[in-house]
């Protein structure tokens, strides 16, 4: 089964049809998606701003990392589930939608940036305390993360304006 057929099948499941036909289900799931998304973006921004030495300078990177990221991940899980339900309601339409594809591309780049930071950069900066200067690699990870998330939100919002 090709990807087109897969999405055509998805769109015809009873859940997808129910979301598409109901007047209240799409806005309600969308609200959950927005709430979870603002928690993901807002919380990860806190860490990014710390990496850029802009905010929360009284905290070590490890402290923030341990305190914030569990909430980021929990919120991401909710956002992804709600987003998948929204996607299913018009799967083939979204699959062909340029802004939606850009959003997915930016999410992929977010994941690569985060994976690189976690595996390579974080072990080097985790033990640095509030006085230690932040290495360039960590600053770049923070700046790139911020910009990519702005892209995700912008393309996500734009998708709502496209047919």
């Amino acid at each position, binding site marked *: 089964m090709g990807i087109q057929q897969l999405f055509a099948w998805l769109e015809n499941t009873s859940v997808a049809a129910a979301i598409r036909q109901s007047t209240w289900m799409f806005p309600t799931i969308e*609200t959950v998606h927005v*709430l979870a998304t*603002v*928690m993901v*973006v*807002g919380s990860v*921004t806190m860490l990014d701003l710390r990496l850029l030495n802009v905010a929360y300078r009284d905290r070590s990177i490890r402290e923030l990392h341990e305190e914030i990221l569990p909430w980021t991940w929990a919120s991401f899980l909710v956002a992804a589930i709600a987003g998948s339900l929204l996607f299913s309601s018009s799967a083939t339409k979204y699959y062909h939608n340029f802004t939606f594809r850009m959003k997915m591309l930016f999410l992929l780049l977010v994941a690569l940036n985060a994976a690189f930071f976690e595996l390579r950069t974080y072990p080097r900066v985790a033990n640095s305390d509030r006085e230690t200067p932040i290495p360039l690699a960590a600053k770049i990870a923070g700046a790139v993360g911020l910009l990519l998330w702005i892209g995700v*939100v912008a393309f996500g*919002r734009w998708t709502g*304006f496209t047919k």
Partner: protein
Amino acid sequence: MIQEFCDWLANTPLSLKIQTIMWIIPAVQTAHILCVALVMSSMAMLDLRLMQVAGTRQPVSRMIDRFVPWIWCVVPILLTTGTILIIGEPSRELLNPYFRTKMVLLVTVLVITFVIQRKSSRDAAYWDTRKIASILLGALSLLLWVGIVTAGRWIAYY
């Protein structure tokens, strides 16, 4: 009267400009949502602390000093971007019950936040020694912010 104001506003040169340039509304909405992300996550962290759910290793006053100053910087940006959206589509917002609900919830939560910050700045241990009030206000504030985001999204569906 509000209808007449909306009609007048929709015909001002600034509104017409916003209406004709396609990308302005999505771009301003994007900026608005990014600011909501900052406020919502900061306030959720503080509210969860007030509710004794998260960050309990630290005193409430430290969380207030860390998170509340943010919202006084970001809320004016939200008001500015929100005003641009209203100028662009006055009837969509001002005549909309979800928008009006959102504004009432917003004013309420800002008053509550101001009180929480003020009590803490006069007596750092204020909320640590008043657990019940702290839990209730934290829960109320979180509920109000969730309500604000929900009402905000539903404006589009009225």
